[in-house]
């Protein structure tokens, strides 16, 4: 490993593939990857079985075919041996013809069973994973926003894909394949014991050795594979960084240095590949050697039994063993594989169920209030809030916004202004104190009712895959095209949208048309205008756009806020200028408040910032 370390020169500036950083990344992910397997748990298995209940018919069919196949496979091999020992050894033509016909018939039956065995197993597995995904998503929809802030999207995706996939393998393969293979082993064992129990004991004696070898190598292999995939993800991560940072790399002429580092990474990965190849290249031949050892023993021991002067073994039995031994040994490795898959499936199931068991941070009271109308007065009383129990981010916030007012929330990153907005939207509920709408505690209000009267324009200007039109009338799907156009006209940006190729029907969102920041923002404004909420929360974009576009968005924003109680997470002076009230937050406390003029006159921190920015 050390020979492929990137060269380190001077004071710790090893560059983009610094080993320590990679270690850091690995440690960060450690908690996730460490539990790739979990012990077999009856509770989990039973719960998983609950998901197969809607497919009971297929489950019964599957169980029958599994059993049938476990018997059919050894019988087929035994049949071949019997034909050789019986009609062929006796020289009976007629019996040979009949028995081969029977063999073909039985083979057909076996494959027919096989067809339904895999059909039902595949279908049940796919249905279970489909239902699990649906159940997870429904459950997620019922959780509160706090959950999504704590969980990175990537983790949720891996629940939905990787973990669910492992469960599917568990359902589709592990159980039924194990049963078939186990049954096949047992069937062969019985047939062999009937043929000659002494020789069978020799076979049996070798089985534990094969099993132990299997476990030993599998452990080393899984370690090798883990290192292989780790070093691989280093390659992809570096690749991704190199492509994104190409402008920086080229402007600093670092191409050569990077290429050297990358080569070291690739060679490092190749060395792990080599370890894995060497391990599996030892394991598989050894396994095969085992089967051959058995054949050799069969010839030596079995042969001497056959030639023994007293109580000789019929030579036919030797031939039967030759056919059955293969079927007896092959399941051992398959079962070893299955055990691994089962443990992986358990870990997947555990994580999937932990999603389904997550309880929302809070729930609406059992008898929520739904007032007939909302005027839009918003008040906070001594609100204390913490995302993590002992680290409050808001320490006793109190303010009151009258209906129709515009409140600007100001403060640095981490000052708590988004939390204040989230509390008004009832994404969270306060630990102590209260948020009141028209004098009613939001805890008592029905969330769906509240959200009908609330609108949000987030900073990321979130657009969903679909046309511009669909995005604007997301909340009012029945709004006519004319209504949407009217809203855009009022925001003074209809021509701007129509100038986009395909106009309002242009596809946006992932993979859609590329819109400018200003355009995306205006679409979100229009969406909020169509929704016509009483309370509006608007997170202003920080990025600068050219002054003329900026002026236009400002005008649209003011129009949107008319007649609504609006909270703006403000970054621009002009927005502040038009606010009825400015609340300046610092580390979860309100440090200044008042009209913009009052604050400027007071000479506090707001006034200083104002001066710096408007210079």
């Amino acid at each position, binding site marked *: 490993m050390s020979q492929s370390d990137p060269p380190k020169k001077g004071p710790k500036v090893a560059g983009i593939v610094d080993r320590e950083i990679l270690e850091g990344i690995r440690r960060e992910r450690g908690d996730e990857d460490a539990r790739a397997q979990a012990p077999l748990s009856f509770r989990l298995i039973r719960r998983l079985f609950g998901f197969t209940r809607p497919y009971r018919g297929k489950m019964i069919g599957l169980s029958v075919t599994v059993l049938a196949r476990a018997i059919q496979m050894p019988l087929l091999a035994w049949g071949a041996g019997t034909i050789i020992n019986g009609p062929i050894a006796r020289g009976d033509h007629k019996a040979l013809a009949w028995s081969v016909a029977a063999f073909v018939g039985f083979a057909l039956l076996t494959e027919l069973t096989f067809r339904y065995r895999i059909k039902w197993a595949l279908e049940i597995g796919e249905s279970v994973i489909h239902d699990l995904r649906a159940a997870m998503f429904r459950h997620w929809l019922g959780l509160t926003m706090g959950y999504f802030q704590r969980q990175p999207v990537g983790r949720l995706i891996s629940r939905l894909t990787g973990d669910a996939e492992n469960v599917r393998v568990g359902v589709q393969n592990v159980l039924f394949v194990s049963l078939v293979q186990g049954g096949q082993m047992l069937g062969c064992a019985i047939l062999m014991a009937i043929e000659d129990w002494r020789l069978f004991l020799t076979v049996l004696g070798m089985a534990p050795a094969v099993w132990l070898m299997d476990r030993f190598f599998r452990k080393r292999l899984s370690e090798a594979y883990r290192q292989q995939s780790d070093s691989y993800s280093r390659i992809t991560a570096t690749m991704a960084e190199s492509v994104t940072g190409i402008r920086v790399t080229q402007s600093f002429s670092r191409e050569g240095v*990077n290429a050297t580092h990358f080569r070291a990474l690739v060679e490092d990965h190749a060395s792990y590949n080599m370890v894995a190849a060497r391990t599996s290249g030892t394991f598989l031949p050894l396994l095969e050697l085992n089967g051959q050892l058995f054949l050799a023993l069969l010839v030596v021991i079995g042969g001497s039994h056959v030639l023994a002067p007293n109580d000789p073994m019929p030579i036919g039995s030797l031939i039967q063993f030759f056919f059955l031994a293969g079927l007896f040994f092959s399941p051992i490795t398959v079962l070893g594989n299955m055990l691994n898959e089962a443990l992986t499936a358990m870990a997947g199931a555990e994580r999937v169920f932990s999603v389904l068991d997550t309880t929302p941070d809070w729930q609406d009271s059992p008898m929520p209030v739904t007032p007939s109308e909302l005027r839009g007065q918003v008040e906070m009383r001594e609100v204390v809030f913490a995302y993590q129990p002992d680290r409050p981010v808001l320490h006793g916030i109190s303010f009151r916004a009258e209906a129709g007012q515009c409140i600007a929330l100001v403060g640095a990153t981490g000052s708590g202004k988004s939390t204040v907005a989230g509390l008004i939207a009832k994404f969270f509920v306060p630990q102590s104190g209260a948020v009141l709408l028209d004098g009613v505690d939001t805890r008592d209000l029905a969330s769906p009712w509240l959200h009908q009267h609330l609108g949000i324009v987030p900073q990321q200007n979130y657009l969903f895959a679909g046309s511009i039109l669909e995005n604007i009338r997301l909340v009012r799907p029945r709004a006519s095209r004319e209504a949407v156009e009217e809203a855009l006209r009022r925001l003074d940006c209809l021509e701007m949208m129509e100038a986009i190729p395909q106009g309002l029907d242009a596809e946006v969102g992932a993979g859609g048309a590329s819109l400018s920041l200003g355009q995306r923002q205006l679409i979100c404004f229009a969406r909020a205008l169509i929704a016509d909420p009483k309370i509006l929360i608007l997170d202003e974009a920080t990025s600068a756009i050219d002054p003329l576009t900026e002026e236009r968005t400002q005008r649209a924003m003011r129009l949107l806020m008319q007649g609504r109680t609006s909270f703006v997470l403000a970054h621009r002076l002009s927005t502040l200028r038009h606010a009825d009230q400015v609340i300046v937050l610092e580390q979860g406390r309100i440090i200044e408040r008042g009209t913009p003029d009052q604050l400027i006159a007071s000479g506090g921190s707001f006034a200083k910032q104002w001066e710096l920015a408007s210079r």
Partner: protein
Amino acid sequence: MPLPPPLGSPSRPRYLLGRLVRLTLRYRWSCLGLILLNFGLLALGLTALSGVGLAIDYLRAELDPGATVFRFPFGWSPPAGWGSSAILWLFGGLIFGSAALRAVLSHLAAVTTNRLGQGKIVVELRSALYAKMQRMSFRFFDANATGSLINRVTGDTQSVRLFIDGVVVQSLSVVLATGIYLAFLVRIHVGLAFACLAFLPLLWVIVILFARWLRRDYEEGRKKVDSLVLTFEELIRGMGVVTSFGLQEWAERRFLDANAAVRQQKQGVFRKLTILFPLVSLLNQLSMAVLLGYGGWLAIRGELPLGTGLILFAGILQQLAAQVNVVSSVADSLQQTLTGADRVYEILEATPEITDRPGAVPLAEARGHVVFEDVSFRFQPQDTVLQKLSLTIPAGERIAIVGPTGAGKTALIQLIPRFYDPDEGRVTLDGRDLRDWRLDDVRRQVGLVFQESFLFSASVAANIAFGNPEAGREAVERAAKLAAAHEFIEHLPNGYDTLLHENGANLSGGQRQRLALARAILLDPAILILDDPTAAVDPGTEHEILAAMDQVMAGRTTFIVAHRLSTVRRADRIVVLDRGSIVAVGTHEELAKQPGYYRDAVLAERGQSGEGNQAKEGAG
């Protein structure tokens, strides 16, 4: 050397195949070794099987000396005095000995395959591809998505490797194996050999057809799952919007539709699989039935020995059944290989657009005198980004470039470090065409700060020293102090050794930009380019960067692209661009008086900040 045929042309597959064959020939000795190993494996396998057959025939002859006559192969006979148990040990030893040797050879084969494929071919291809990519021009990166580029280095190189060990070696081995098996069986009994192998071609055809058929399905399935994940990610990221507008039902519908589409698609795959698997298995059993019937009949007539005939045949049939997988994978690999090779060689063959001209002169230290002479430039053939633009910037001047989105501001400054070359006209540095200086030297003379500066996941010091990894700690700190970054770096948990997360996610926007400034000036460049460095931060933190900028601009020719007046006003001269042409040049005071874009922008910004209102009131 003739040019390679372009992508998608009809002669391309043939050309790629030629390249792949040439690549294979470079590793011909390893390949030959592998084929020989496979041959050895086969021969030893047949030896072990024959051992079993011989033993059975020997036993039958011993039991019933009258019925059959046993002969040792190759006319050999055991020394007199050997008892039956010695002979049984001989057979046992033959079986185990050849199996043990076989194990050694298969280990060797596995290790050799890996050393050749993963250790040599893939390492070479990946390194070459990466090194080439690092030097590709920006046009190339504009045209290709990050994911696709990553894939070329990771997945496609493996596809190319597959041609050697998956297609060439495997198919030669299969042909060899089939030939040897056939010869071996024919030697025993011609008719039975062909009867038993009659199903083999059919089996191969079925497997190859299904493989091709299913691959399309699997690709389709991957797309469906991708779209499920995409839908999911979108909905989760937009959860704030979903919740606040009460769109839960809509979101659920959207997700469930995508989820159902995945299951729907899988059903089709299952239908095919449930035909394929039983069919393959059945064909193998039919071969066995033929062997039992026809072979049994021959055995009864005494034309075929039981052990070295019937049972040996049965053993070989099992081996051939196992080969079916190899055949289907070769068929699949070939297609995959060509697709991968196409994308790998596209890059390896490409000539980077921007390279040193022959006879380019080294540039030790530039003064920073930049002149644009009738420069025209476009990203794509149809559009025009810059039109016949001329501009002279004396060394040490600070020049601001303003104009509406799409005016060509960024294009203009990207010509200076030669990220692109002009289509017409030229840009000179200290009196010489940029293309006549050595490229690396030019870039060393240009310090760049982008709108959102990309930082690498390395230590703070490593990021500042990016342009010169050998720079000592003092040089790093000096640059950081100049960029007003020293203080906050000292306050980071591990100071200069603090590791940055991906793209510096653990720093604020202002901090990231100051690090980028420090990185840009570490090499003490004569020219500094600031591409809207304050765009992505809010006005509150803007002044942090502006203060740092004043320090680093001193004594350097500086180009600033900016929207905010507070930034623009620091320049000696302001250039207003519109649709690729210069529409005005002057100082802030001059331009603010002339009607036009600049005055409108000034008024718009004043109007927003409130000062303009008072001015208007005063005027009114």
